[in-house]
């Protein structure tokens, strides 16, 4: 047991596989940068990634949806750590973290997605193993190790690259970052001496439908995340 988990794969094997993932990241680094994907840190088989949404760096939101004056306002809409221990016998573990401290935290956005015409949220508040919010998608350890998905084994998907750094980042980006199109600001004045209350929330929706002037169901991430 290492740090509370069994060591099932020789770390050098996982390191070699992660190194290949990082090499592939470098080959697409320009595109990823334009998408707002920032590689923050690589250490001890863990990769920290921040994803920035803004009118300037996210290619699709309506112009000036988020801005300070005429300048875009970059927002770290998702920041997470992928843990590649025991990869790829296990898929990587995804933990949402604070981009500055690196500590686990709730993300500022939800993960709404259309599933056969129904909007569902892939961000679940508490994993039974960790108590932390997790992204309930294939290719992520928290999904495959969840009791409700014991019949959807990781090894069924390992070969298709579901757990690759690029595939996971692509899903986080589409579910939690690309669909950010604005900020809802609520100001509430209170009788003195109580201070004025300011509430900021990120708004998410189907960006492509917005561009086509279609009706969009909007998701507003609650304060404090999950």
């Amino acid at each position: 047991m290492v740090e509370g988990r069994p060591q099932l794969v020789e770390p050098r094997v996982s390191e070699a596989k992660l190194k290949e993932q990082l090499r592939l990241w470098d080959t697409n680094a320009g595109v990823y940068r334009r998408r707002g994907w920032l590689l923050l840190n690589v250490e001890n088989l863990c990769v920290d990634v921040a994803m920035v949404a803004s009118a300037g760096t996210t290619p699709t939101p309506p112009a000036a949806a988020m801005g300070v004056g005429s300048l875009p306002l970059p927002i770290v809409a998702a920041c997470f750590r992928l843990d590649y221990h025991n990869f790829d016998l296990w898929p990587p573990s995804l933990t949402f973290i604070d981009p500055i401290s690196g500590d686990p935290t709730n993300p500022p956005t939800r993960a709404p997605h259309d599933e056969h015409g129904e909007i569902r949220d892939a961000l679940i508040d508490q994993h039974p193993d960790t108590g932390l919010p997790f992204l309930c998608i294939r290719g992520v350890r928290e999904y495959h190790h969840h009791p409700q998905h014991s019949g959807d084994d990781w090894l069924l998907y390992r070969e298709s690259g579901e757990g690759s750094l690029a595939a996971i980042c692509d899903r986080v980006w589409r579910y939690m970052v690309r669909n950010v199109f604005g900020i809802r600001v609520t100001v509430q004045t209170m009788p003195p001496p109580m201070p004025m209350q300011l509430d900021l929330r990120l708004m998410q929706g189907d960006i492509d439908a917005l561009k086509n002037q279609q009706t969009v169901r909007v998701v507003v991430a609650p304060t404090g995340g999950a």
Partner: protein
Amino acid sequence: MRALRSAAARRGEDVPENNTIDLVVVVSGRPEPVRAHPNEKVVDVVRTALRESGNQGQPPENWELRTEQGVVISQDQTVREAGLLSGMTLFLNPEAGAGG
């Protein structure tokens, strides 16, 4: 770099090679060069990219092809209809399976 042939050329169809376009399809993070003819279906581009990336036999409908901006490209249309141009980079990932 290996020689590229469009799916139409591989089927033995008479396709002027100077009409083909060169794409890069990033399959689960791995870039694969793919040559395509404007008249061939996008699904053939997907099949080629899957084969070249070692995912031969995987049904294309289980994969999503997207532009750099993340817009889904329908596999039913032709390369021309999809507006694909030489030099474009596309992203092919397994269709997301989510709980929640």
